[in-house]
């Protein structure tokens, strides 16, 4: 063990001198070394602060979604989606079969099933006063709403992410990354599709939507998040 480097030695030497003075002996190098070691062991090693919860700087969910949207997400939904009435009928009686057929069979253990769907019908109500705007669609012509479609800009849930069988939570560092990836789907749909939809006099027009919804209890109507959406002209 050599002489401590200059920036460190000032305080350490003083410390050693004080200790040497207390012991009433002349400071010599071996004692200094011992004193330095004592002063080091007396230090408490504090943990490094853990930053913002582990959200790495390199992680860019918006870019990830943009990269897979046209190449993988939309083709997957087109391939998997069934007509809303058909999907929902099976979802109510046998959610696991519906999930295997229209959704992601490898979903997280206790999370609800999510299904890819096509919703086509007449808009019979719309709530555009809320930032979480929605339109209620009648798919079977009975005059009653069957599904509620989110049209943004604020959107709930992670149905698009959760319907995809090639996305796994274990591929992400933590739930923050996973959640932000989920939200990036909604943001991308809002930016490229929903923000371009008309907002006025929606009642009575037709709507055609490709998207996904999660089977939840206590919902008034199944809440569909679109990946593609068209609204017909005013009647």
């Amino acid at each position, binding site marked *: 063990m050599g002489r401590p480097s200059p920036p460190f030695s000032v305080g350490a030497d003083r410390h050693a001198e004080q200790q040497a003075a207390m012991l009433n002996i002349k400071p010599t190098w071996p004692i200094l070394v011992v004193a330095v070691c004592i002063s080091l062991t007396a230090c*408490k*090693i*504090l*943990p*490094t602060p*853990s*930053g*913002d*919860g*582990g959200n790495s700087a390199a992680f860019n969910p918006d870019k990830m979604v943009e990269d897979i949207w046209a190449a993988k997400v939309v083709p997957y939904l087109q391939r998997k989606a069934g007509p809303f009435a058909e999907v929902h009928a099976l979802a109510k009686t046998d959610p696991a079969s519906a999930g295997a057929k229209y959704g992601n069979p490898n979903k*997280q*253990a*206790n*999370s*609800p099933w999510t299904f890819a769907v096509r919703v086509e019908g007449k808009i019979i109500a719309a709530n555009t006063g*809320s*930032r*979480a705007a929605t339109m209620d669609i009648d798919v079977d012509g009975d005059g009653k709403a069957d599904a509620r479609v989110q049209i943004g*800009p*604020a*959107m*709930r*849930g*992670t149905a698009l992410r959760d319907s995809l069988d090639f996305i796994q*939570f*274990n591929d992400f*560092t*933590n*739930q*923050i990354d*996973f*959640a*932000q990836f989920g*939200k990036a789907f909604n943001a991308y749909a809002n930016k490229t599709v929903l923000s371009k939809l008309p907002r006025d006099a929606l009642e009575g027009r037709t709507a055609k939507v490709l998207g996904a919804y999660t089977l939840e209890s*206590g919902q008034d109507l199944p809440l569909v998040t679109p990946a593609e959406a068209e609204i017909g002209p005013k009647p």
Partner: protein
Amino acid sequence: MKLTRRMTLAAFAGMLALGTAAPAYAADLIAIITPSHDNPFFKAEAVGAEAKAKELGYEALVLVHDDDANKQSELIDTAIGRGAKAIILDNAGADATVAAVQKAKDAGVPSFLIDREINANGVAVAQIVSNNYQGAQLGAQEFVKLMGEKGNFVELVGKESDTNAGIRSKGYHDVIDDYPDLKMVAQQSANWSQTEAYAKMESILQANPDIKGVISGNDTMAMGAYAALVAANRKDVIVVGFDGSNDVRDSITAGGIKATVLQPAYAQAQMAVEQANDFIKNKKSPEKEKQLMDCVLINGDNAAKLETFALTN
């Protein structure tokens, strides 16, 4: 001197005899390490894990780390030293915990994490974590609805060292920040503490009498904030919590706090012990290391069904 040495030898021999004899009849040990039991949530975890461990024939060593990573590291050493067959851990920091769990793994003691995850895969055998982000989004959506999408609000944040404090706050803002008419006038940490939340709420209220809502990172802070609001005759302020404690359940049914989010603490801890048992006895790891458990919104509609961090049907 001679006598001392002889006594030491005798004691040593005695220890050896005890050491070799003990495993013949003592049950295998499972260490259960959580934050302080002052918070009923962590107590429910410890109680759930201990009950399941005993049911499966284990002895349980219940310890608390008080959200101190150094103390946690010492407790892991204790568990290793005591020859624990597995560690059930609600950890003290997503980054700080990785080394401690690795240390246990290197010593041949598998860890089963509950509630909070760590920022590493392949170190713990299982990470059964509440989807706090999803839960926070549920709570925030309810909060936004109760607030009518506008007004001034306050956020009480949990203890900074706890990963879930940050996750919940992010989840809240993920939803709330989509509504520009909702304005956060104060954001403070009350360290998960009821008394601290009471004091913070009092001073926040003096500076911002025009608040309409309080969103809190957990239930104990929500209870403290609500008590301060009642004391200031401001029962009109909307309070939303997180955890699903019996205290907040009672407040909801009495028309006080408006909503909370249930994390299945008891069930989660029991599930971790079951997976530990399977690992110890059958050398079987769970199919996926990270297992997310969804949270459930609790409001006036279902509060009556809530009991000790579990919903009855």
